């Protein structure tokens, strides 16, 4: 049996109310858990882009991509393996203010991981780290013992490594 791996779906769509629901139901129907989802505008005017990350087999990914592509308001759906994309996720870590000065270990972590402090207040401060999931997870594990107050990771954003002229292909489709 083929092993599940991480796949990123890039779905170019019309901005239609209910479309997100329609697409997430395609995963639900097949009992596939969505790991992250991000909606944004795309490089083409009036075309939106969803970036969806799931753990499935490639055989499943091919079928799911076709099912997504088939939806009326989907302009085009692509799927990519992890190694085919350049991707980032942003994580925010809210920490108690005292650990910033406690022995300097937290400051060391921040500079070692190229994270940054984006906000400081009387009681807490907020660290931001952008990177791959493994990197934000590593920092999460390191910060936990210092009393991590809140943690949040964004949906994935990704672009393909291949030059793959999606834009011109899409422009053809939408013009």
């Amino acid at each position, binding site marked *: 049996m083929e092993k599940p791996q991480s796949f990123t779906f890039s779905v170019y769509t*019309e901005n239609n109310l*209910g479309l997100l*629901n329609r697409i997430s*139901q395609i995963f639900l129907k097949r009992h596939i858990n969505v790991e992250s989802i991000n909606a944004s505008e795309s490089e083409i005017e009036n075309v939106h882009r969803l970036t969806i990350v799931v753990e499935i087999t490639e055989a499943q990914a091919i*079928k799911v991509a076709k099912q997504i*592509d*088939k939806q009326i308001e989907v*302009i085009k759906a692509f799927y990519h393996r992890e190694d085919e994309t350049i991707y980032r996720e942003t994580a925010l870590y809210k920490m108690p203010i005292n650990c910033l000065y406690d022995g300097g270990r937290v400051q060391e972590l921040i500079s070692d991981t190229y994270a940054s402090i984006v906000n400081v207040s009387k009681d807490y401060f907020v660290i931001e780290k952008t990177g791959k999931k493994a990197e934000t997870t590593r920092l999460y594990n390191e910060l936990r013992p210092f009393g991590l107050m809140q943690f949040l990771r964004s949906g994935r954003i990704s672009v393909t490594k291949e030059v793959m002229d999606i834009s011109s292909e899409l422009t053809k*489709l*939408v013009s």
Partner: protein
Amino acid sequence: MPETEKVTGSEAVMKTLIAEGVNLIYGYPGGAIMPIYDALHGYQSKLKHVLTRHEQGATHAAQGYARVTGNVGVVFATSGPGATNLVTGLADAQIDSTPMVCITGQVSSHLLGTDAFQETDIISISTPVTKWNYQVTKASEIPKVLSKAFYIARSGRPGPVLIDITKDAQFELSEYAYQACTAIRSYKPVPTLQMSQVEKAAELINASKKPLIVWGQGIILGEAEQELQTLIEKASIPSASTLLGLSAIASDHPLHQGMVGMHGHLAPNKLTNECDVLIAIGMRFDDRVTGDLNRYAKQAKIIHFEIDPSEVNKNVYVEYPVLADVKQSLQALLPLIEENSHPNWLDEFKQLRKIEDEKVIQAQLSPTKEGLTMGEAIECINKATNNDAIIVSDVGQHQMMSARYSKFVQTRSKVDSGGLGTMGFALPAAIGAKMGALDREVVAIIGDGAYQMTIQELGTIMQTQAAVKIVVLNNEFLGMVRQWQELFFDKRYASTEMTNPNFVKIAEGYGIPAKSVSKRKELAAAIDEMIACETAYFLEVMVEKEGNVFPMLPTGASVSDVRLS
């Protein structure tokens, strides 16, 4: 710019329906759709409305109408329970690719999300069972959205669309500007034919020693019956149908090998695992057709003529897809096909057919025991109608029997709930079929269980005088489930025995002539009388209680492991 008139949203619905060629609507009114019904009242000469007795009945009637005409079936329902009652019909139409547009009323837009009276989120509920759905909150959107709905429902691989219209949008005045929808930039209904795929397919078919065609409803939806028949005859290819493909080719065509699948015919099932080239046309390799996929046509090169790219390689790996509209691809294929004959291969079908005749069919058609069989009742219907009725079946043993024993001479003559297997489908679907084909005999073949799921539609027949012939094959069991209990659950008949009412009296209560027969010598005359009747007619045939449908592929079995008893 021409002056455009201001009309209410409800009137815009009527005008758009007429512009889309609609003249028949099935539905059921209620609070949130009252403005639309009020507008309908003024359009009665152009738009006939049939009041069914349940919204599910309206969907199945629209499906029956769509299946025999090829037109889009149209349904109206109110919000809340009216809308949720559509779900079964939507799911049925979605899985069986039936063009349908359902229009639901919705609470006023300022009430959305407040749990207002009869508010239900039908957009979310219907999403997985529609090809497209959309909520309208402004009257000005109506012409555009509705014409888009019809375009989507009927183009490419057809399917159901639901449009939910808030009550304020139904009242609101706006300028009516209709333009037929002919394209949507994000939707490509028909893939562009690639000649290289057709050439490859022709090459394989010409070189094949043991070709087998399995066709599905795609042939009927794509109106490619003639092309299919030419292909079959030119290359002398034994061919079999899926349940939904039945009637696309006349039953007595010498190359017609019957039906494939769980209760299909022995020869095409078994020889699926012997053919060298399997030519699948407008079918989707449903599990009821393929049995165990690991032992399905592994020896064969498979060609798949298909309009929907997501069906290719979904269940069966296909090396040679031909993606296009089937009429177009078959027309491109035909000139490349060489005349051929396969006498030895056809002989293999004949021999298996003989075995099936002796071991299964004879016992159905010329029974020696007392109880009536479903097969002999169906055979009488064939005779009384010269094989030229539209047969609408419900779901269960009687459905498989009518698929196996009904005969057809023209296309669009078999209406089934295939993919969903919806009990209760036949009576309302037969009403729709009759209204779509007034000059044809429409016979609904229904089990005693399934009949009682939508029996209230007798009221629709009473009111509209639709001349539907209703045959209930009564075995006093939920027969198909009982058969499985007998074969796979040690005959433990859990909740499958039925205590039934007097069906004759019920039909008579609705003013429908009715009769019940239980003796062989009365059967043919009763069926003749039913067919001769000008109006609707109800006939109950008491059949053997524990009859079984064979041949059968038990779940998980391979198509070559057919059980004959």
